[in-house]
């Protein structure tokens, strides 16, 4: 029993995060002050949202490299909608953002499901297409803070019990998707379709369709994050969140999501994102150049995947009695 606990990926990661926080706080106690931790969490929320979506996609043996481009495109569209109709209530903005993101995710999903094109190729393509479309619709111009309506900018920053709405949305997403992944048929289908596609077919699960839903969820979360991103930073242009898709994949890998599919949890994605978020926020505090961040997250990915691989190594058959007793 103890062995099961110790090898559990999530607990290992919680340990790593606690250790990291202890190290930082030993020199800068202010870092673990509740207000600062709330700030770090809030800052990491977009990564958490996207990592949850990406985790689901990776579970089904796919990958979604278009999430950051989806985020940027949706963000640009809602910014332009806001500029054109400043009075439009935020609810409609949210509906547009989630709706458009979902649609973009469905495009990926359809190409993977109906045409059976490898997901890495599909999302590589849509990633560049989405970025290009942003340029076309915006004519390469920025939507700046002063053009956005106050309500548009205020929503993600509104403070509830010391945590901005952005952070609360991430918490809500974690709760909702924890339930979806463990307590719904679709949630278990994601695991089944990725863990053993052949068997899933026999169990009455349409693997392609399950992958389609994974991309749809990933797209919906990316769209939602698109609005939250542009309103929080109060700016929208072609290159926002450039390269962010790799941070998202990194968060998943660090969170113990297996790139081979079938293994991963919402908690893992959350912890992986937090690990990267804490490092990013801690670097300036401990007076290390922010330029170190990229190399550190790269190193963390490699260490994480090496540890995961060690834990998942296939064991050979134990035939000898002696060996059987010893184990």
């Amino acid at each position, binding site marked *: 029993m103890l062995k099961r606990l110790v090898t559990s990926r999530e607990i290992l990661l919680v340990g790593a995060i606690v250790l990291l926080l202890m190290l930082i706080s030993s020199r800068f106690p202010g870092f673990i002050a509740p207000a600062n931790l709330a700030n770090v969490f809030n800052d990491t929320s977009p990564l958490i949202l996207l990592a949850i979506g990406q985790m689901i996609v990776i579970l089904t043996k796919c990958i979604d490299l278009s999430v950051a481009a989806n985020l940027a495109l949706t963000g640009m569209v809602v910014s332009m909608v806001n500029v054109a109709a400043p009075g439009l209530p935020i609810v409609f903005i949210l509906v547009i953002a989630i709706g458009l993101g979902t649609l973009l995710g469905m495009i990926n999903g359809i190409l993977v499901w109906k045409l059976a094109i490898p997901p890495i190729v599909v999302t590589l393509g849509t990633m560049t297409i989405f970025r290009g479309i942003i340029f076309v619709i915006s004519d390469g111009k920025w939507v700046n803070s002063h053009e956005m309506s106050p309500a548009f900018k205020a929503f993600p920053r509104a403070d509830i019990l010391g945590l901005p709405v952005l952070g609360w949305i991430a918490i809500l997403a974690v709760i909702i998707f924890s*339930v979806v992944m*463990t*307590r*719904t*048929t679709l949630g*278990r*289908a994601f*695991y*089944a379709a990725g*863990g*053993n596609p*052949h*068997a*899933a*077919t*026999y*169990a*009455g*699960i*349409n693997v392609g369709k399950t992958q389609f839903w994974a991309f749809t969820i990933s797209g919906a979360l990316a769209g939602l994050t698109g609005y939250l991103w542009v309103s929080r930073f109060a700016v929208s242009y072609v290159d926002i969140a450039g390269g962010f898709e790799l941070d998202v994949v990194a968060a998943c890998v660090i969170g113990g999501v297996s790139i081979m599919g*079938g*293994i991963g949890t919402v908690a893992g994605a959350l912890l992986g994102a937090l690990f990267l978020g804490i490092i990013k926020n801690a670097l300036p505090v401990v007076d290390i150049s922010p330029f170190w961040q990229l190399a550190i997250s790269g190193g963390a990915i490699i260490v994480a995947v090496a540890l995961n691989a060690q834990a998942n190594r296939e064991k*050979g*058959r*134990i*035939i*000898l*009695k*002696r*060996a059987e007793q010893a184990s």
Partner: protein
Amino acid sequence: MLKQSDTIMPSERATAEPAVLALSGITKTFPGVKALSEVSLNLIPGKVTALIGENGAGKSTVVKILTGIYQPDGGDILVNGVPTAFPVPQAAADNGVTAIHQETVLFDELSVAENIFLGHAPRGAFGLIDRKAMTRKAGEILDGIGAGIDPGHKLRDLGIANKHLVAIARALSIDARVVIMDEPTAALSHKEIEELYELVESLRAQGKAILFISHKFDEIFRIADNYTVFRDGQLIGDGAVSDVTEADLVKMMVGRDVSQIFPKRTPDPGDEVLKVAGYSHPTEFEDIGFTLRRGEILGFYGLVGAGRSEFMQALFGITRPSAGTVEVAGTPVQIRSAADAVGNGIVYVPEDRGRQGAILDLPIFQNVTLPSLGRISGKGFLKLAEEFRLAREYTERLDLRAASLDTHVGNLSGGNQQKVVIAKWLATRPKVIILDEPTKGVDIGSKAAVHEFTAELAAQGLAVIMVSSEIPEVLGMSDRVIVMREGRMVAELAGDDLQPETLVRHAAGI
């Protein structure tokens, strides 16, 4: 009656009992192949029906049609006599049809309870899965079949036999009326097979209709009530098992009389080519040692899971032994990789042809020349004409049937794929060839051919090691037989000791 086997025998008891699930006049065509042509099949409650046929007879196509994976081109699926379509796998499940497959197709990362209830889990508040109820029900079903498995465990922690039990529990959980078992005993040990038989009997007692697909005649006569024989996608005959003999079934399967005749050999062992001593592995085998001479066939017998293949793969350099020595023709050699083994003249024809033996998406000639490229190329550059020459020489020697030498191996039949694998190794001019279950998945007609050239190889001075689980094959082919049990050598038999009972006694440890 003697030439009767080519025509469809009328089903004498077709109207006797109502079938819960039946196929009537089912036809299924794939590009270029007629997989099934107007076949019928009746599954009757409380009866075990054995579906028998050679590879390619259409058995797996039938399973896929019954489970909604494939749609028939013509004919009817009758559920209690009513024509019903199974457009998706779920429709088959909804009609109480469930299948347990050759390799247990379940989900390692899900819990046992989730595996049992995937797709039809009990629901609680808000339509969410009720985990408590699911775990409890799973426990009840598992207890019902006498399986002491914790429903909360992840499936990956279970052994193969327990995974089978989970698959059966899954079948029971959907209140199946029809249970399809596709070669369920293929990967099980002797004891596990007995337990499975008991389960099948209890399912039968519960009034389930069972379709039992098997290659093994002993188990058909042990548990089946009825039989249905397919050949080349056609129904050849069906009836009660008690009315037929094994010879009758074999005749229906292959369409001709086949007595298992093994090639006559006059063994003339030459010099010693291989000497293995003290070969051990931490978990798989221990202290294996023997010698082998030119022109000799050494059989390795044991139950599935006795460690024979594991030892052979270590000898071939796929895995590393923890101790032991190998001498080839009197010279000690180090084997750290398959390349080393091939370099020292030891080659291995694996059991898993599609994954390990051949590269299915490459042409025949490239498969044959792959290990020999170092020898027939010019300083690392390919010589295509030389490749074709070599491939032709060895494939013709083995009487390969193929459209052309650049046909992909995946398009060949099992027997012809096996010939490509063997041709590949003969082209390296080996000293020792290891054949691991060489006739598994090879139809009866081609088996004799495999035996024939195995004998011929030995006659030409090659040393042959033959791993086989078929007692007639091991006894019919080998000069000596080593029996393994639980990773150890338990007997080395020759001459008059080569009796079926002796082999079984040593292998089972009785």
